[in-house]
């Protein structure tokens, strides 16, 4: 602490401590603690809060697992189904995203000339000036029954009648993949950028094929970047709302849509909070598990 103050001077040190402290305490810890607390409380009118009925309860978590007491099912198949669907789809999308972004990031980091690399990075960033909702609606137009893609395919004679991309969730997966692409590309790019080009040449000189060089040299080197990108994309995809609302088929439901419904339409904040906590904790546990399996330390991710 003394060292920190001596190094940065009293003014800057105080500013850093206060601003970062504010950020962590007021914007992260307090709201999340409030949510955690709320998730264990009954959904009662404001007037009764603090009264005898306001006691800690597991009713919302029970609801997530077993459904309402009036239903005949032994488990809440609908909500659990939506939840698992969301997690599995998020995993799938993260993997697709990785496969899609790795070659691009490698090209920018190691193959392209500095000028081309700059141009490519800029052209990756600029589309994200358009807001997420607008991008999602644009995709909807593209994938709609009488949308651009169907029209072109019909004109070319590839198909006779339009394909319902929305119902097949092709539009949703495309939209989710695209939404967080930068969060995959940049960590990958950062990690790959630090790879010494001589390593690639040395491997080639020793007879290694390009694919082997990637699996033995490049990917191990970029492991932390891959973990960082995958973590961010997975978390954000599992927690996405706007894209699923716009692009999902009528019978696909994203778990965040459920949460949104509890908060807004059903006016049941405690249950929404409980569902949020379920999503958050399962996502965190999953990420930590993956990091353990692939032997990545949390410190490496933020490097």
């Amino acid at each position, binding site marked *: 602490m003394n060292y920190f103050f001596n190094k940065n001077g009293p003014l800057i040190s105080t500013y850093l401590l206060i601003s970062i402290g504010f950020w962590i305490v007021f914007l992260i810890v307090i709201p999340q603690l409030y949510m955690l607390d709320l998730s264990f409380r009954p959904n009662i009118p404001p007037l009764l809060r603090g009264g005898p009925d306001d006691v800690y309860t597991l009713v919302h978590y029970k609801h997530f697992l077993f459904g309402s007491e009036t239903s005949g099912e032994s488990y809440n198949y609908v909500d659990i189904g939506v939840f698992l669907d969301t997690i599995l789809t998020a995993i799938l999308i993260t993997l697709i995203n990785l496969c899609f972004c790795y070659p691009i990031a490698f090209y920018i980091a190691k193959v392209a000339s500095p000028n081309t690399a700059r141009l490519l990075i800029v052209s990756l960033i600029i589309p994200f000036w358009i807001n997420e909702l607008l991008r999602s609606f644009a995709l909807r137009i593209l994938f709609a029954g009488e949308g651009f893609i169907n029209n072109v395919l019909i004109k070319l004679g590839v198909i006779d009648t339009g394909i319902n991309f929305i119902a097949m969730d092709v539009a949703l997966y495309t939209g989710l993949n695209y939404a967080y692409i930068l969060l995959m590309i940049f960590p990958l790019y950062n990690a790959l950028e630090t790879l*010494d080009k*001589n*390593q690639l*040449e*040395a*491997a*080639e*000189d*020793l*007879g*290694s*094929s390009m694919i*082997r060089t990637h699996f*033995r*040299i490049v990917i*191990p*080197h970029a492991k932390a970047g891959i973990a960082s990108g995958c973590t961010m994309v997975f978390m954000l995809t599992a927690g996405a709302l706007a894209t699923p609302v716009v692009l999902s088929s009528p019978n696909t439901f994203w778990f965040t849509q459920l949460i949104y419904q509890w908060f807004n339409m059903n006016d049941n904040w405690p249950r929404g909070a409980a569902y949020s906590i379920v999503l958050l904790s399962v996502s965190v546990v999953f990420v930590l598990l993956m990091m353990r399996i692939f032997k990545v330390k949390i410190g490496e991710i933020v490097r």
Partner: protein
Amino acid sequence: MSADVELQNVSVSFGNFYAAKNVSVKIEKGEFFSFLGPSGCGKTTLLRAISGFSDPSDGNILIGGQNMAGIGPNKRPTSLIFQNLALFPLMSVADNIAFSLEVRGSGKAERRKRADELLELVALSGQGDKKVHELSGGQRQRVAIARALAIEPEVLLLDEPLSALDLKLRQKMRTELREIQKRVGITFIYITHDQGEALTMSDRIAVMNQGELEQIGSCNSVYEAPNTPFVATFVGENNAFYGTISAVDGDMVNVSAIGNNFLAKAGDLGEGRKHTFKKNDEVIMFVRPESIFLKDQNNQADNIFTAAVKTVEFEGNLKNIYLSINEKQDVRCSVSNAVDTMDLSNSKNVELKFSSRDAIVLPVGPLAVD
């Protein structure tokens, strides 16, 4: 002996810039051959062309008589040791060495056996399970050599691999490299800007400047009989006296320079021929500092001149005496530190001498800038 690596009029250009210009060399099998030159002289470019990482814009590269055009680095019988070694940091030492065997699909036991053999060759037995970063600089060097030898190359290419080591280790590694080369008996092509390295290890040296070959020859001939002023000044130290020819007698010439008349021999032109001069030709006469003696030293000399002492510098085994002739011509003279230089005070005029056999006359040309 057959030529193992042959460069036929090889040029490498980047746009309008020629990194290597019309280079022709025949390197024999089992030879330790060095390309020596200042940084930016095109030697690394040539090495990359031989290894297959870049293509010559003109000319042919033949290895074992076969034209290498269109053959990638992974298909050539060459192995390159990079300047920064480019060892794989996430693999063990043994995995590094056996990487080329892994690539070819050898089994684990076979890879381990080969790695152990190579570790023994480079005197690193028992270090196979360590990570690269646990080794010292010299040990890493040897791992890089072992890894490069694992593919059983016909030609080993070395891109200044010793430049990151400190002086003592570098000197030790020179001897070791030379010994390893004798043991494996393959061709080594070595790139360096350090003439000491080139002179101690090589069978032959090619001196390069600005993309062009200046001279190819044994260490002795490059040092003792430079063909150009660049070679004379780049390899070792030299005093350059600008002057004109006043008389020619066979291979011996008289040079008049800074008010003196010196007897010297005409320099070699290469391929056994000598430069020929006629009266009034502008020339440079080169005399090495160790060939110039104080007059009272016991050495034969037929040229005597006077110069004023500027400084005397102690360099361990040698003393360097810096002098000047009429403030116009700097002269450096190196004497053994056993020579008494106590009475060589500043500005004192002393008589110096050198033998005409040690004075080489070459046509005027660019010197190596230092």
